[in-house]
């Protein structure tokens, strides 16, 4: 009985398939005739779709927004936005912090003890050199403000951690000449940037080092926005500074034989659309779409021995300002968010004191202050200073409590990428987070999890295993050169086994660098 029914089913299925094939043949014949006709009448059949079918790509590609072209628009689906409570909104306060620091350890690749040019008690102007690295004495690291050097803080093994400057009430600038960009040679420009302090803002990938002046990078990449948790609104820094942006880009374009790539998102398209000398790309998607490493991968990935440079958007503006006015003035619009009384934006300068920025902002004692975001920032105290590239302070609660059945029946909502939490039903929910690990460290068990958090053609878990086993060839093959800690941070957040991916990756990068 069943077999009979099955056979008649088979016959009907064959008939239906035959009918479909017949229709398909007829329509494709008609389609071809239309295209032949279109060619005869001289219509461009490559770029306009003359077929009766929609083109395959257009069906699945996301619609390109009207401010850019399809080739410069990247829609990323992987990743995750961690939404936290305490996002600052509204206007920017100006807060003249009294103490600033330049932190030698922010500049990767240098020796831990730089050669100091100042000592405690020295008076410096903004833009005057403070120290340099013995390996590359031409690259000067300069003061962000004018004032008196009041402290040189040392860390482990006598390394220098902070060069603290007490700022003057009235800022005095060490004015450098403004170069004529149209006829300056690349060598002269490099010399100018090195002595004015701007060179230290260039970051070299792979490894994230201070750029090597003897190398001509393939391309230079700038990301104009940040998608991280509680990141500042990118349009704040750009508003009213289109001249600085253009000048900064002009300088960068002199440093590479390739292209300067500037990436933004929809919110800042009006700020970027008029910029010349750069190829402007737009990204749409959750964090880490704003990371320059992800953007490089989608625009023009680092392969083989490629070397590219990157610069943060704040530094590009500082650079633009420097070459037009001669003043080194590294402005930062810092977002102060999370568990604070009043989340807000503060305009200040590079390396400002954390405690002064947070004055009257803290509510409780059992908290953690993070310079940067919750994914790759550093835990600091009130006495510490922001790093060179930090433009946010996040305050969260410490999570040193035991939670009954916390793994099974959590009492409080917490961010998660897992669908075992009902979070996916409430996409706009913001979380009050703490630093609890929510579980213990385990071996790698779950697979496919990191891939969902990293919009790159990379297998992060296998890369981590290659690093742990010290397999250099495999590390390179699996794309370690395309990554820095910030790119893998979201995967570390989501890791079920609570593995320290960022520090594993840094071990791998250091291991690889030693081989060179």
């Amino acid at each position, binding site marked *: 009985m*069943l077999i009979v029914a*099955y056979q008649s089913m088979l016959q009907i299925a064959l008939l239906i398939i035959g009918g479909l094939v017949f229709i398909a043949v007829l329509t494709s014949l008609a389609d071809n005739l239309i295209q032949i006709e279109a060619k005869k009448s001289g219509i461009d059949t490559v770029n306009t779709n003359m077929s009766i079918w929609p083109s395959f790509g257009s069906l699945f590609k996301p619609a390109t927004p009207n401010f850019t072209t399809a080739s410069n628009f990247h829609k990323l689906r992987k990743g995750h936005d*961690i939404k936290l409570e305490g996002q600052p909104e509204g206007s920017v306060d100006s807060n003249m912090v009294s103490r600033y620091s330049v932190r030698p350890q922010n500049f990767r690749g240098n020796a831990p003890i730089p050669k100091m040019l100042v000592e405690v008690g020295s008076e410096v102007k903004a833009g005057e050199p403070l120290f340099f690295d013995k390996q590359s004495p031409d690259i000067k690291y300069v003061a962000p403000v004018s004032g008196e050097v009041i402290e040189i803080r040392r860390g482990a093994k006598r390394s220098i951690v902070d060069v603290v400057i007490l700022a003057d009430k009235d800022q005095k600038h060490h004015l450098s000449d403004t170069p004529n960009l149209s006829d300056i040679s690349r060598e002269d420009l490099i010399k100018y940037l090195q002595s004015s302090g701007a060179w230290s803002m260039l970051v070299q990938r792979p490894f994230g080092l201070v750029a090597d002046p003897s190398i001509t990078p393939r391309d230079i990449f700038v990301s104009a926005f940040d998608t991280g948790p509680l990141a500042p609104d990118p349009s704040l820094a750009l508003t009213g500074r289109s001249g600085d942006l253009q000048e900064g880009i002009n300088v960068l374009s002199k440093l590479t034989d390739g292209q300067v790539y500037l990436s933004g998102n929809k919110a800042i398209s009006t700020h970027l659309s008029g910029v010349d000398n750069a190829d402007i790309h737009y990204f749409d998607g959750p964090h880490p779409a704003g990371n320059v490493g992800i953007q490089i991968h989608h625009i023009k*990935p680092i*392969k*083989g*021995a*490629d070397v590219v440079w990157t610069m943060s958007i704040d530094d590009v503006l500082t650079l633009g300002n420097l070459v037009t006015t001669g003043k080194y003035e590294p402005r930062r619009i810092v977002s102060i968010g999370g568990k604070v009384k009043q989340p807000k934006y503060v305009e200040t300068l590079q390396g400002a004191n954390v405690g002064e920025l947070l004055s009257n902002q803290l509510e409780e004692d059992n908290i953690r202050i993070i310079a940067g975001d919750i*994914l790759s*920032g550093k835990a600091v105290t009130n006495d510490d200073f922001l790093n060179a590239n930090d433009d946010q302070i996040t305050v*969260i609660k410490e*999570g*040193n409590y*035991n*939670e*009954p*059945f*916390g*793994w*099974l029946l959590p009492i409080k909502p*917490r961010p*998660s990428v*897992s*669908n*075992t*939490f009902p979070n996916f039903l409430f996409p706009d929910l913001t979380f009050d*987070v703490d*630093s*609890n*690990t*929510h*579980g*213990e460290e*385990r*071996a790698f*068990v*779950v*697979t*496919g999890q990191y891939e969902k958090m990293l919009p790159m*053609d*990379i*297998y992060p*878990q*296998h890369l981590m295993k290659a690093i742990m086993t010290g397999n250099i060839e*495999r590390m390179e*093959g*699996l*794309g370690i050169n395309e990554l820095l800690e910030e790119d893998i*941070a979201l995967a*570390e*957040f*989501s*890791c*079920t*086994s*609570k593995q*320290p*991916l*960022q*520090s594993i990756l840094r071990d791998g990068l250091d291991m690889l660098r030693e081989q060179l």
Partner: protein
Amino acid sequence: MGLLDFFKKIEPDKKKSPVLHTLFDAVFTFAYSPDSVTKGGVHVRDGMDLKRTMIHVVIAMQFCYLFGTYNIGHQHFIALGEHVGFLEGFHLKLAYGLIKLLPIFIVSNVIGLGIEIYFAAKKGHSVEEGFLVSGALIPLIMPPDIPMWILIVSVAFAVIIGKEAFGGTGMNIWNIALLARVFVFFAYPTTISGDEVWVSGFEKVAEGFSPEYGWAHGLFDTLFGWMGLTTFNPGASIVDGFTGATPLSLATKGGWEAVTQVYTEGQMWWGAIPGSIGETSKPLIIIGALILVATGVGSWRIMLSMLIGAVVMAMLLNAWGATPFMTVPWYAQFYMGSFFFAMAFMATDPVTASSTNIGKWIYGFLIGFIGMIVRVMNPAYPEGWMLAILFLNTFAPLIDHYVLEANMKKRLQSA
């Protein structure tokens, strides 16, 4: 925080009694999530951890447990010709099932966890959660009448040789639960294959044999007697013509017609047939599979590709049609045997499966494809998923190797 204080008070010394401390740690972290905070790297961690991942697999299996327990009793009474309707004699079937299942569950977990705790204490780390799932899976894939000593030996073999020898949870090559089963399969084949082993409670499944009841049944009898319910009947005997043959063994001999003479499609689909404890009810397993897919704990890629692989092979075998089993319509293959259980809970084990997404497609497809060949063409044992999954477990690293090689080649080539 009374309980928390109590835990803190009884915490054994880690140096003096490491095994006790490991046991304490396992129980404590079960009751309370630890108060550890992030150091370096990210400052906030996802709420997901390995315990939560594993418990969702166990939750997804609960329907199989409920049905499996009842079905042990149901098959027992079918053999006796008593309470033939599915819901008749409900209390007896449930009591009978519990008497069979509970010892299996307790023994496999005590042995498995005991070994885990011992090794964890020896290595000086906390107990990893892998056995939470293995310990829940092993009872579901054993025949109800498995002798306890065989169960103990097989679980010990699987955990020591299959897992601890490789370095513990996350390092094993083969699925632990299947390793326990395959150990029984090769070492004591008569306890896990053939027609007789799937119906429990008889010395031999043949006409005239009476059930063997013990003190536990007597206890329930007293209880049921007080409540005025029917009791176990030690005088009953197996009815004429009852063989206990599973649909698969019938299909080997006589194709789909032989199967449908004994069982209806509804019986096979809903699971009122003899078989391993938890594998018979397809809809309940599919609910479990959907839970795993919806929560993202199980890989839908493996499940889907395994289904595709099995369908393709079943169709090819239909086209060949050399033996009665090959002529069983391809869709009817899914009424019989443990395909869905293997798909939902065995193939998706993340440790032993392929770890790349492309690899998962290949891995799942080959399990479905090869498993169906083993089921239909194997002369001795008409089921293939256990062997196919263990086979592909062995090759999963190789599949990943080629997927990664392709990725590396792409990166290095265009340099």
